[in-house]
Each structure stands twice: as C-alpha cells, then as structure tokens.
C-alpha cells in the first residue's frame, strides 16, 4: 500500500509540477531572429558595400510621380540592421516573459531584412532596384503556384494526395494555348484549361479510388505521362503548323478603375488580366467555403475521418472524386497562366517543376488557402528577387535564392517551422 501511495504521490507531484511550471521558453524564433539580425548587421551594415542603391518606385504613366529613393548602401544597411537587432532583442525579452509574438512581427522583420539585403545587393554597382517590377514579377511568378496550391489543398483536404499538380499545370497550359490559338481567342483557352486539369484528375481518381493504387505513384507517373503527351504533340502537331495550333494569344490586362492607380501595389495588383482576378476570387472563395460551408465541412470530414462522415450519410468516395476533379480544374487554370496568361506560345515542359513548388506552398501554408497564398507569394518573390538581382548583377547567386523555397519547406515538414499536420486520412483509400 505504501508503495502505491508513494507512486501516486510522485505522479501527482509530477503532474502538478507540470501544470505549475511555465511552458518551456520557445527559443527557436528568438535565435532565428538574432542570427538574421547579426547577418544583416555584419554583412549588410558593418562590412557593407560602398556606393548607393536606388529604389525605383514609379513607372511611367503613374498618377503620382514618385521620385526614386536613393540611399547609401552602408548607411541603409546599418540603420536597418540596428532596427533588426532591436527587434531580435525584443523577441528574446518577450520569449523570456513567455509572451507569444504578434503575427505582424515576423512579417515586418522579414520585410526589413529583405530591404536591408537589397540595399546591400544594389550597392557597389550603383544598381537600381526596380521595386514595381520586382513585385509585379513576384505576383506573376506566384499565380500558377497559387492555383496549383489551391488544387492540392482541395484534393488533400478531401483525402486524395495529388502529386500530379505539375502535370495538371502543364496540361492546362497546353490545352489553353492550343484552343486559344485555334479559336484565335485567348478566352477560349481560358475555358479549355480547366478541362485539361480535370482530365488529369479523372485518371488520378480512377486509379486511386477504383483500384486503390498508391496515390503518390499515380501522381509521379501522371506527371511523366503529361510531359510525354504534351511534348509529343508539341513536336508533331504544334510545330508543323504553329500558326494554326500554337500562335501566341494573350489575355488583355483589364485595369480596375481607381484601384489600379494606387502607386506600386495598385499597379501590381489591379492592372492584371482576368486570370489574376479569378485567382483572387478562388483564394477568397476557398478561404470562406473550406471552413464555413456545407461543402467544406463535408470535404474536411471526408479527409480527416471518412468513417465518421459515412456514419452521417456522406458518400465518401463520391465526395473525394468530385472535389479532386474540381481541384484539377483549378490547377488547369493555373496552367493557362503560362501560355495565354503571359502571352506565350506553348513550350515543352514549360511548367518546369512549378507544380512541385505549389505542393510545397500548400504544405508550408498548412493546408489553408490563406497560408498557401502567402507561401506561394513568398516563393514567387524569392524567384523574382533572384531574377532582379541577376539582371543588375549582384554578388549573390541566383541559384541560392531559388533554393530557398525548397529548403524552407524541408524545414517545415521536419517540424522546425511550427507544426505541420496534414489531413489525417489523406492517401488512404476508403474501403467499407
């Protein structure tokens, strides 16, 4: 009896100690901030590069003419770095007090760090950083990623892993280009693209739901299949008569009155073609419908706990197939951005791995439309930054910047960046 009492007492003491003890100090973020702040201080500030960096904000035809901002590279680096150091110190202080940082903190920190970096990178050669171009490029590079990530998200939330986003983007790009070219109308391509994406999804769900083939395998193989079919048709049909089959068609820009006149952001966000506006609508609609609608509730139930959904009369497999097809259509639209969205003819393998980055964006965004949007924008920005820096000739290698999204994603799935939890039942065929 005494043994039992002691054991119980020990346990009780342990549990009460646990509840009394404060949660452990979260060192991960303060340390990250500190390292970044120090990097900025040492490399961009103290070592620095002589010369001036010009931030070009205005582009021709703006409502307001905003002059270029010219800063001394080292001064800007030092000032910004000091702010970063202060922020890092604040994060340590708050961590010691066990106060969670507000959501704006990492954003502001990140923006300041990037500006500090740009000031450094632009220095020396007296480089001009065209801000508007940088941001516009970021958005353009993000559009297919965002569509792709939304596609992956809807599929996986329904319980179907979709590695074939890459193939769906490519198929969308192909069909959009061909149909637009034949019809001599880019909007016709816009209608055709979702069909191509959905067709890939048909194959995916056919094998996944009917034959329970592993979804990862189907996805990987489908990507190869789509590359094969589109490249084959490109080399045979499209190149024989490019005027008929593969002429360039571009969706015209439709500037939104007033909004598009806002400097920088207005230009970037609201002087775009319809595909970009569709993207806004898709993201906003998904953010609302995934979490607040009957459709979204059932979709999440099917992806998390299909048996529970079954016990309340929801048709699990039907729901999965329907949603995955819809998701495929979304990815197809994203593919259209490569061709009619950008005014380009179709080219072999032109999706160039973007589908995999879209997958990464979805994971980093924790299967939330909003999060996936931000992650895709981040990826698009880092790529655009790489392009910009390459064009102004800076010491940082393009490739290292391009690697960033993938490294961040690896760290994310390994649990270094918050907890990533996929839908519980994804990839598991539902068999009654």
């Amino acid at each position: 009896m005494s043994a039992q009492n002691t054991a119980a007492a020990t346990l009780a003491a342990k549990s009460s100690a646990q509840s009394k003890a404060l949660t452990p100090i979260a060192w991960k973020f303060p340390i990250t901030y500190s390292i970044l702040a120090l990097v900025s201080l040492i490399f961009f500030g103290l070592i620095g590069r002589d010369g001036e960096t010009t931030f070009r904000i205005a582009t021709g035809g703006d409502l307001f003419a905003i002059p270029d901002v010219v800063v001394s590279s080292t001064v800007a680096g030092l000032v910004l770095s000091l702010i970063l150091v202060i922020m890092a110190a604040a994060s340590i202080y708050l961590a010691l007090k066990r106060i969670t940082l507000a959501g704006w903190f990492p954003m502001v920190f990140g923006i300041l760090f990037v500006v500090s970096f740009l000031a450094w990178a632009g220095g020396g050669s007296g480089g001009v950083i065209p801000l508007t171009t940088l941001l516009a490029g970021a958005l353009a590079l993000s559009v297919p990623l965002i569509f792709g990530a939304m596609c992956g998200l809807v599929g996986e939330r329904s319980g179907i892993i979709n590695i074939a986003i890459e193939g769906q983007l490519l198929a969308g790009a192909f069909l959009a280009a061909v149909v637009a070219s034949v019809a001599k109308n880019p909007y016709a391509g816009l209608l055709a693209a979702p069909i191509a994406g959905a067709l890939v999804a048909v194959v995916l769900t056919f094998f996944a739901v009917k034959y329970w083939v592993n979804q990862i395998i189907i996805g990987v193989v489908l990507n190869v299949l789509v590359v094969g079919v589109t490249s084959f048709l490109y080399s045979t049909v499209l190149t024989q008569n490019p005027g008929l089959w593969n002429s360039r068609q571009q969706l015209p820009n439709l500037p939104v009155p007033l909004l598009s006149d806002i400097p920088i952001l207005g230009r970037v966000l609201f002087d775009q073609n319809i595909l970009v506006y569709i993207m806004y609508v898709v993201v906003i609609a998904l953010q609302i419908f995934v979490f607040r609608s009957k459709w979204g509730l059932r979709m999440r139930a099917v992806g998390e706990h299909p048996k529970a959904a079954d016990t309340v009369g929801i048709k699990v497999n039907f729901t999965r197939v329907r949603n995955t097809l819809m998701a495929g259509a979304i990815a197809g639209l994203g593919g259209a951005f490569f061709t009619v969205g950008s005014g380009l003819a179709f080219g072999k393998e032109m999706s160039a791995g973007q589908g995999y980055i879209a997958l990464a964006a979805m994971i980093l965004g924790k299967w939330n439309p909003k999060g996936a949007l931000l992650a895709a924008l981040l990826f698009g920005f880092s790529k655009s930054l790489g392009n910009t820096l390459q064009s102004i000739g800076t010491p940082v290698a393009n490739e290292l910047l391009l690697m960033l999204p993938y490294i961040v994603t690896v760290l994310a799935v390994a649990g270094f960046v918050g907890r990533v939890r996929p839908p519980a039942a994804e990839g598991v065929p539902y068999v009654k």
Partner: protein
Amino acid sequence: MTKVFGSFVANDHIDLTIEPGEIHALLGENGAGKSTMMNVLYGLYDADGGEILLDDKPVTFAGPGDAVAAGIGMVHQHFMLVPVFTVAESVALGYEPTKSLGLIDLAEARKKVREISSRFNFNIDPDALIEDLPVGAQQRVEIIKALSRNAKILILDEPTAVLTPQETDELISIMRQLKEQGTSIVFITHKLREVRAIADSITVIRRGKITGVASPDSTEAELASQMVGRQVSLTTEKDDADPGDATFQVRGLTVVDKAENVVVDDVSFDVRRGEILAVAGVQGNGQTELAETIIGLTDPRLGSITLDGKDLVGKSVKDRLGSGIGFVPEDRSTDGIIAEFTIRENMILDVYDRPPYAKGLNLKSAVINDEAKKKVEEFDIRLGSVVDPIATLSGGNQQKVVLSRELGRELRLFIASQPTRGLDVGSIEFVHKRVIAERDAGTPCLIVSTELDEVYGLADRIAVMYSGRIVGIVDADTSREALGLMMAGVPADEALAATAAPEENSTATAAPEENSATTSAEETK
C-alpha cells in the same frame, strides 16, 4: 416497439425487444457480438437474416442515414468525431443548417448545441475543438449529435469503457434524464455495477447467443456467472506447479500513455520458475500495456522489471529478447507476424540475426529451411510449403508459427498475450499444452488473457487487473463469481467474502461450479 433479429454472422438468432423509455442493458464479454448487432441495427452492416420492427412496422436501413431518419442514434465505442472540428461543426455534419450559397448557419448550429447542452447540463462549449475536449465531454458531444437528430432510441456502445469513475457517474445521471424525457436507451457493456445501477432490463449475450434475461435486482455474482458462462469447455491436463525461485520480478511498475493517463498503476508481482501466472481482466484495463512494457515496446514512468537479477528497464527490445524472453503479442496479425513474409521467414522474425540462422550478415538459407521443417513437424502446423506466405495459413496455424518461434529457443521468461484469441478448439488445446510444457521445463510464464476459461486452464496463480491496478493475486481455484467481481474492480477479500457466503445468492443461475463455495480466502500477494 419491437425489433427482431434473425441469424447473421456474429449473432445467432438474437431476439431483442426494447420498450419505449426503458434502459435496456446488453451485457456480454468482449467479442460476444454486442457491437456487431448494434451496427446492424444502425445500418452500418447488412443483416443476413431476420428483421427489424419499429413500432410494429418492418423497416430496412440501407445506411446510417436511414437509421437516423427512423429515430435511432448511436454513440460508437470509438467516437465518430473529427478531431479538428468544433463541437458545433461536429454536430452539424451531415445535417448542416445552411444559409445562402451553402454557407453553414453556424449560429443555428451553436444554438442547437447550447439548447441540448443546457437541457441536460452538459456544459459543452459549441466552439471548443473536439481534440481539446476530455473523453467524457466528447461522448456528450456524440449524445448531443444523436439528440439533435431527434433520436428516440439511443444506442450506447461500451460508453463507460473510456471514462473515469466520475465521468461514468455523470453519464449514468444523463441516461436517467434521457429516460425521463422518453428516450429509449440500449446500453452495451460488460461492467456489472453500471448495469445494476441503471438498467431496467438486461439481456446477457455470450458467443453470439442470448444466454439469459435478467432483472436489475440480480446480484453481481449472478450476472457475472451468466456473462462469463460456466461450461468448462477445456480441461487441459497438467500437474501441480513445482515453483522455484522468483526469477522474474516487477516492482511498482507505472506506465503512462501519450495522453498522460496512467494505464498501468503501481503494479508489483513475481513469477517463479516453473509456474504460470495468468493476468485476468476485462480488455483495456492495462494488461496489454503491462505486457508491452515488459518486452520493452513502451517505457515505464516508474518501477523496475527484473529478470534473473538484471534490471530490464531502459534496455532495447532486442536486448530483452536476447536475455531470454519469449513474447507472443496480443494482436497476432499486426505485431506477431508479417503477412507478406513466408512461413519460414516468420519463424525467424526475432532470431534472424543469431546463430544458427545467420553467420555474419549472411542468412543461412538451408538452416532456416531445415529448422522451419522441423518446427512444422513439432508444432503440427498444417501448410503447403514453408515458402508460402504466412497469410495463406489459418489463424490457428499462424499462431503455431508464432509459438514455434518464441518457444523454439531456451527461455528465461515466457510472456503470451491472448495466446488463443480467435483460434479453434483444437488449436487452443495445442497452445495450452505447449505453454504448460514450457512451464514444466522450468520457465516462468506470464499469460495475459481475458478468457476466463483460458485463465483457469493454464494458471497456477491469477492476478486480476482493473483500471491499471492489480486488484489481487489469488489461487487458481478461486470461483468464477469471485473473479468476475474482481474484474469489475471489487477488491479480492470483498469478492471472496461475497461469493463464499453459501446458498444466499445464485439461485437464478444454472448449476453451481463445484468449487465456488469452497474457495479459500487466502490471498497470495
């Protein structure tokens, strides 16, 4: 209101009638067929015969949706709740109140939860996430779910299996309230006290058949004997144990699961050489975790496990197997065998890297083959070839493969969890013989079983576990009634005293077992 059942796989011609506004307990051991029956009733499985009458009208359910529409609600043993949903979402799922555009009217959903919650004092926040709720609260969400669809009959499948005693008390008062408001309740359980506390009528099921209808004023002893049956189906011949030193000792062992629940609570016992200690108890009272902790699959929070004077805590599974433990896991198909592997590969699953099966990194194919054939002979395993996948064997023969592997080497301790679960009578007898032979060879044996027949067939001493604790360690000739009470948590001395008082009880039940009245009250702790 009448429901009639005919024959289907797990249920053999079961008739059951539930009156409006009554609490009907369905009492039976695990695997007796209670849950299967209720799943048929709820439209999840199809019946292979028989019919369901609702208010004297025959009804057929194509799926759970039909059953719900007919006013039947079910709270499954494993909750059908999506962990990442809020309470309001969980209740709404499948029956969502919607506004325009298919958006869910969450205000309406919350209102419904609050309404039912306050009617029964459930105290559930409609915006809480399911995964953040304690199990008892999750169960109340399930009940709200059923009630929100106007269930007139509520099936509760093992509702107390996962609850603490306090939560169980709360549930019982909730059931009373429901009954007062006219809801019929089918209460599936194997816990005697709860049945006596709440049920209006009791049906006892054993091996898919109704073995009796009892009234709530039956004694626990009566119910226990009806539930566990009294036919002595297996008489394994064995000599009395000749116990030697207590080479295996467990002291103050405490195991905590991931959710910080204490699943094994300060357990201490010895097993001596040449004796079989059987751990009896209703499934889910910590026996599985006890066995897994001894072999090293889980680490204990407190306590020590000593074999031949060496402490095993902190050692790897491989080390423990190496120090001479043979282990037959409870879930054969998941932990005991690899279905895709051949029979001979399964025979070396945990000795593949030791002589004579391996030399360096090389597997010695010929030796493995020969040994496999020898074992097939020795253990009378019926098979085509030792290179067939083990999945082609029957359960009994699969278990023989596991036994041949675990008993096929010199052992210092033998542990078997549910060694005969799902086996036919012939195989059971064989397994028992082998275990006794191992005992006679001087190995201390620890057998975990929920089957009382098996416990009696094998044990030299019996330890009964209830909610993680050892309620008592008693002699093998303790009466079934006493064991039944102990399995329900009654301390050993009380249980023995209650059943030792002769002739007062057990008039309703069949012929008493010969040793029931003469059980000695001595406890061997």
